[in-house]
């Protein structure tokens, strides 16, 4: 049983990035999960914070896949600079 007081939502949200990178000490990680167990709002915040990171990655990764042609004028301009 832990006699430690619960951390606040503010403290939990401050710790999220370190929690996701596994940088919290065992005691801090334990405080983090104890708060999550009793706070649906922070569970939702954590889920949407993680979703935000994925959303950025997935969207830009998706943007990287179309077979867009390289602009020929820019290729020629750079080749010209090289010739000088």
């Amino acid at each position, binding site marked *: 049983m832990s006699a430690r007081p619960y951390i606040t939502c503010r403290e939990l949200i401050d710790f999220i*990035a370190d929690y996701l990178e596994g940088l919290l000490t065992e005691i801090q990680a334990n405080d983090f999960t104890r708060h999550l167990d009793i706070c649906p709002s922070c569970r939702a*915040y954590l889920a949407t914070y993680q979703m935000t990171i994925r959303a950025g990655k997935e*969207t*830009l990764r*998706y943007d990287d896949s179309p077979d867009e042609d390289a602009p020929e004028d820019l290729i020629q301009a*750079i080749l010209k600079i090289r010739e000088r």
Partner: protein
Amino acid sequence: MEDAVLVSRLRARDENAFETLLRTYMARLLRVARRFLKNEEDARDAVQDAFIAAFRGIDRFQAGSKLSTWLHRIVVNAALMKLRSRRRHPEEEIDALLPRFAADGHQVEESRDWSMSAEEMVQREETRELVRQSIDKLPESYRVVLLMRDIEEMSTEETAEALGITPTAVKVRLHRARQALRTLLDQDLRR
């Protein structure tokens, strides 16, 4: 063509190899530059600077590294130079996009879970467009850190060095940038 072959031909100053490099990597480096620079002309300038720098610096390319990763770093640096060279207007505050707390440390506004699977998200063009527009709305110094860390997957240390700030400042900006982006997405997705 394999990286190692292309690099050795570039080192031999083979002009055809330079053209191959341009044609192979141009489109994707231009997309990287456009993420950092909203102006198309600046993005094209950054890509041009990056290719010239890569060609001149090819002897410093370390065997065993990936050519695409090395080129990405060069174009990110070229884009950062462009951003720095422009006189910036005072940056917008990010505070309005950060979560608010009551005096006792509780969230003022209850968070709702609108997370979805990555597959589900990628299938919806409207969600992808929302993500792009929301990233563009972030204040520049936060947007740049988010792009470098979460999208280009550069380390905290690499990002700190490229921006001339401390690793701690990178971590703080990244966390705030993600929180602000989350708030912007929340405004549309929490329905």
